[in-house]
């Protein structure tokens, strides 16, 4: 569960990225966060992952108060999140299976736990046959599936996908969105940051639109605000 209450964020160079954002995402929700470049979408993601600290307001992420979180608690907060990036960020020297094991070992999972969990997650994203391949041997869509598998492998409460289809063609983008929808149906909260209007319109989900650091629209049910310039 995420709570933004009057969140402000100003960077050191004086840029005011967020100007009093109020946002609540409950467990199990699927939310699209849309807005033009520079509107504050990435800042919201960075605040949720604790890469940045808010300048004002109150921020809660999965039970952690990020206003006064101790540095030692940040890794434990991050274990409640899975993050998917536009550029996949897979380790090219490792196989698909090793990429997932790497993510699990990073939080102290035992080899026994990884042997049990990795094949299950690979099957979930439909890549069980590609476990031994390296990322460079896969298509863009498949690489993003691996990134989704990596985000899922530690069983997070919430997945944040930052422009997950930005590097994919429309067909692969649709497949990825359908996969994310399925993951959401299995109980994981989803926050998808995107500016792909067609894709957002195709799914009947809650859409939060942001512009100039302010939320200008928050509608549930697949509504996409036409006033927002993407």
């Amino acid at each position, binding site marked *: 569960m995420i709570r933004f209450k009057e969140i402000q964020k100003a960077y050191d160079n004086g840029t005011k990225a967020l100007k009093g954002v109020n946002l609540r995402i409950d467990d199990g929700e699927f939310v699209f966060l849309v807005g033009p470049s520079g509107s504050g979408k990435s800042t919201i993601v960075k605040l949720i992952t604790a890469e940045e600290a808010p300048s004002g307001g109150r921020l809660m992420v999965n039970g952690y108060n990020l206003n006064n979180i101790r540095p030692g608690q940040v*890794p434990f907060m991050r274990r409640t999140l899975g993050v998917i990036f536009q550029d996949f960020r897979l380790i090219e020297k490792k196989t698909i299976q090793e990429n997932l094991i790497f993510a699990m070992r990073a939080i102290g999972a035992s080899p026994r736990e990884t042997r049990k969990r990795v094949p299950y997650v690979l099957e979930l994203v439909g890549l069980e046959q590609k476990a031994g391949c390296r990322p460079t041997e896969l298509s863009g869509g498949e690489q993003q599936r691996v990134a989704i598998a*990596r985000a899922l492998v530690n069983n997070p409460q919430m997945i944040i996908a930052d422009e997950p289809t930005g590097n994919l063609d429309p067909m692969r983008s649709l497949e990825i969105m359908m996969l994310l929808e399925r993951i959401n149906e299995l109980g994981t909260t989803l926050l998808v940051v995107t500016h792909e209007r067609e894709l957002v319109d195709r799914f009947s989900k809650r859409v939060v639109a942001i512009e100039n650091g302010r939320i200008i629209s928050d509608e549930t049910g697949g509504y996409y605000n036409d006033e927002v310039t993407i």
Partner: protein
Amino acid sequence: MKLRYNFGYFISEGFHSIFTHGFMSFAAVCMIVCCLLIMGSFSLVAVNVDHMLGDLEAENEFTAIVEETYTDGQTTQLQAAIRGIPNVASTTYVSKAEAMAAFKEGREDNELLNDLPDDVLRARFRIHVVDIERMKETASQVEALDGVAKIRAEFEIAEGFVVLRDIAGAVAIILVVILLLVSLFIIANTIKLATFNRREEIAIMKMCGATNGFVRWPFVFEGMLLGLAGALVAFLFQWGVYSLVANAVTGSDTMSLITVLAFRPMALRVLGAFVGTGLLIGTSGSVLAIRKFLQV
């Protein structure tokens, strides 16, 4: 999933990483070898210089001249009293005849000396001290003894040795510290380059929820292994280079005055110093290098 610190995993990751990033590992080991060789060579030169100064110091002595009226029995008692003074290393008795013979040595052409009787000079003790720095104080203590007519000593030379030894020691320490810092800087930068290639891995680990300790330990072990490997290679090189130089110096006629210490008796200490320094610069280099990348 609770946090587990599996050191077997860290060591295997560190070891695996050395081979995965082979070129950078090779560069880091080469840097450690070079730094240790420079430091080691300088330190060994300093040790040899110190040893030679020690030899020269040992040859420095002062003379206590015995009262003319003293009998042999009294002189023996006086020698025991001199040996009882704390800083006295050894005493050598020089009889009147021996003193005269020594005086005549090199003056054989001087006919005036031929007619002098053998007992014209007084008996004396040649006294070596343990610590040349305390020579003046020791000489005063000897002079205060009954039976000692006077003291003859070259305090300026003794003080010169002390100053020379102190300067050599200080220069050696300063240079070794500077070289150590330079090595640390170079190693930190070499490992930082290696770490830079892996910043994506670190960022992924951090985003997955890895603690700083979890991310840091494999790098620390990697640094330790590189430091250890560099130290062992540097030790073998040092042994070879030292032996070559030592053979060249001892075999040379022009450098016959220079005495070179054998490497074997020092080998364990050199190995210990190399391994210790290698581990220190490898580990500190890793910790310094990774610090920046942990701030995600």
